[in-house]
């Protein structure tokens, strides 16, 4: 499903170049779930951006669904993202001017795969059925993150990339959201790569890796 081989990424800083990822290899099979851990600034989000084709590595290759991202045009990378990936961000990034229902179906509509029954199912499972006509600002933080997860799952992606999906939520709400995410992943059968710095959040995942000084290693929970 996802294969990263020999990935290196360096950023220029006032103190000189900073190598964030150094010869990183990572493979994620269909239906697998993986938690990527590490301290702030360890390069977790960079790796996620590379996996999503939002950015390109300086060295190495990223294969998604068998396609090498670096040889694809920006338009094709965008299409791949639209069709096969679901993205969940820490900051939700909902569209404030769209209703809950329209936000939920946004990526599915972009991908041309809107499924009314699946949408209703998601709304119910996410506990948003009664709020479908409201706008994001009228929802609580937990509801907003549930909506962001629903948006990512609405086009039935093969891989869900989540960047600290509970980072903005209190403990109780975070637990609820994680349970829901896990349940929906199981229902849809898509793979999950989740970036987190919390061992508790990472625990339910099948595999656990940690990024340290640009290198990827197995994590001990």
């Amino acid at each position, binding site marked *: 499903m996802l294969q990263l081989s020999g990935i290196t990424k360096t950023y220029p800083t006032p103190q000189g170049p900073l190598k964030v990822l150094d010869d990183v290899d990572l493979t994620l099979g269909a239906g697998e779930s993986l938690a990527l851990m590490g301290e702030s600034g360890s390069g977790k989000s960079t790796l996620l*951006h590379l996996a*999503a084709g*939002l*950015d390109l590595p300086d060295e190495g290759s990223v294969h998604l669904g068998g396609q090498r991202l670096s040889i694809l045009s*920006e*338009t*094709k990378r*965008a*299409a*791949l*993202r*639209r*069709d096969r*990936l679901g*993205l969940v*961000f820490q900051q939700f*990034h*909902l*569209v*404030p*001017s*769209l209703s809950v229902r*329209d936000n939920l179906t*946004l*990526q599915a*509509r*972009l*991908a*041309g795969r809107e499924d009314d029954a699946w949408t209703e199912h998601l709304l119910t499972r996410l506990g948003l059925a009664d709020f479908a006509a409201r*706008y994001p600002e009228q929802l609580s933080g937990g509801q907003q993150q549930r909506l962001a997860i629903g*948006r990512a799952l609405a086009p039935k992606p093969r891989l869900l990339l989540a960047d600290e999906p509970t980072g903005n939520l209190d403990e109780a709400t975070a637990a609820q959201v994680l349970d829901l995410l896990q349940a929906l992943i199981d229902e849809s059968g898509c793979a999950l790569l989740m970036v987190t710095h919390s061992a508790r959040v990472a625990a339910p995942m099948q595999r656990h890796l940690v990024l340290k000084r640009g290198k990827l290693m197995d994590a001990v929970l």
Partner: protein
Amino acid sequence: MSTAAPGVLRTTLGTLLSHYRRHPGQLLMLLLGLWIASALWSGVQAINASARESYARAEALFSADLDRIARRDGAALSLDDYLALRRAGLPVSPIIEGELSLPDGESLALIGIEPLSLPGGAPLAQQDGDADSLRNWLIPPYRVRVAPDSLAKARTLEGLPPLEIDPDLPPATLVTDIAVAARLLNMDRHITRLVIAPERDVELPSAFVRTSTDALASPGQLADSFHLNLTAMGLLALVVGLFIVHAALGLALEQRLGLLRTLRALGVPARTLILALGLELLLMGLTGALLGIVSGVILAQLLLPDVAATLDALYETTVSGTLNLPWYYWLGGVAITLGGLFSAGASMLWRAARVNVLALGQAQAWRARLRSQLRLQLLFGAALLVGATCLWWYLASTGGQQDLALGFALVALLLLGAALCLPPLLAGLLGLLARYLPRRAALLQWSVADLQLQLPQLSLAMMALLLALSANLGVGSMVGGFRLTFLDWLDQRLLADLYVRPSMEQFEDLESWLQERSEVATLLPTRSTEAELIENDVNVGPVALFGIAPEPILRRHWPLLDTLEDREAAWSALNQGAIFINEQLARRQGLAPGDTLQLKSPASLITLRVAAIYPDYGNPRGEIVLPVSRLATEFKAPSGTLGVVLAPTEDRAQTLERLQNALRQRFLLTGEGTDGTPLIDQQALKQMATEVFERTFAITRALNALTLGVAGLALLTTLLAQAEARRAQVAPLWALGVSRSRLVLLQIGQLVMACLGTALLAIPLGLLLTGTLVAVINVAAFGWRLPLHVFPGQIAMTVALAVMVAILAALIPAWRLWRVPPRQLLQEFAAA
């Protein structure tokens, strides 16, 4: 993937547009800007297009293709003159003209022609060509041709032959056979004019004089200044309106950066995103253009009757009171709105396309780009100003032969260059203020720092204000300077208290009678005719000759722009055979005092030396001044006007009235005023000239004020659009103990500060604009230059206007801040 592409575009566009559902004010501001820009431009163009169409019809009718023949003694032409010339084998054709009064008090012009003798190429002679049509024209019940827009009025006239529609005729004009016209106008054996094809080079009997077609100023030429004013102001309104659009688009983009990033992350390609933004612009543009053009036409429809009346009063041109808009008007209106919108939106598309998807939505990255954009803007603005300087230098070196298009290019470079430099200059000014403000003035320091943060959002509105203020000062100074110069010039040229226009037979008797009157101090006779100007043995066309009597009073007052030595020497030279020429002729022919020119007189070719150049405002033609005696003998000019200068008296009005009454009784002269009547009071003439002046510039002033209003609106809408974000900035200050009333005052003070900075730049820019208008645009458009006047009052007014606009624009947002409940401010504080 390919099947999803239209869906991606549709969904992206829908999502982008949904932004306006939450921010209807921004949409309103965008459409308002487009609407104002398009409506004012379209309105002005509709008036211009309609007037030009009327001029074109009138010019085609009186064409411009026929020379006129008149009696040298100035007497009216009669049927006998026509018959005598035809018997002499001259292919002349008679025309009579008059007015038929309508029941509602208006009138229609009636022109009678003789189709068989009228030169074939002339538009008046163009019949349908078939024999039936000509027969209908020549035999009872005859026919009267009328333009469709005057048909209804013509139908209210009784006793007219059957009407035929002719779309080529000018408005309010009827054309029929000369016999029918003579009967309807009771003109009996009188003829208004005789015409001849210009290519017919015939020798006229000495009693007649021929005026070439080139010498006749067409209605379009005369009203050009009026339309030039309208166009320039329409263009300014368009530019200022587009600044509002630019400001609105910038805000809409900045607020949607997060949305753009999300869309890109969800798989919308950059190209699709730009295409969607482009489609959004197109949608806005078409809506704005439609709204603007429709309102522009309504505006023009409302204004046209007044404009037509003004043009009729000023230039005696008949402009149809109903709009006649050619197809290209509509297309042009849409094109200019869309073109303007895309030029205003191009930077938005460019910036959106360049920003990295990972940096999208990050305010810092965006601000860093704005800083580099400010630097780029300053460089580009400076380059434009250097370009303007080079163009000025080039135009100054070309002397009189200036190109109007280059003149406008100079104005555009100057305005755009200065506008682009404004934001970086304001930023620099605020930086300096922040550095030197005392540390104790914490609120003031915050105020300056906060204004620096606001600058990117405010800069476009400030640029619009700069343009409006400098245009206000520039045009105001130009009109003020023109008024001073023009009134001064009128005083110098209209020296006589009374102007008498006697017939040829009366002239000598009347002159002798006046010379003997004790109340008359000096008589100033004038004559006029025309002659062919010869340059390098080539006839370059006719030039007007004006004869004056170089009496001491005239020598003292007649304005001169340039002489070889001094005024006295110039007048002596005039008496010894030299000439004066007007500024228009000097610029057109590149002549200076001391140069010579050649004229073809009825007797021979004469070489004349130019002794001086005089200003001749408002005259589109080249003119030469000679002593009146010389004009009579060498150029056989018919007698003209007698200017009567009264001897010093305590009661001028009474003396003048006594003299006028005596003239009426003795010489049966009647009438007062200015229009073809034999007695013209100087005061009435001056009053009319001043009225013409004021009315010509009234619309300029109105549009100028409107532009300033639009700029104020730009500022207001910008403030309203960012009011929400501003509250988050001021809420912490409120939480720290600054009262809401102080916050309100601070906000007003900030805007006044920014507007004052803008006004400081608007002053030199406005003065430069005045310089360009009087020294370049005026010379290129009309052939004469105005002296540059600087009015301190106008400058003070510009500064006052800037402060007023700032206070007015800040008032509503400040009032809203004043009314915001403390609970909401607490929320803003928590979010800040």
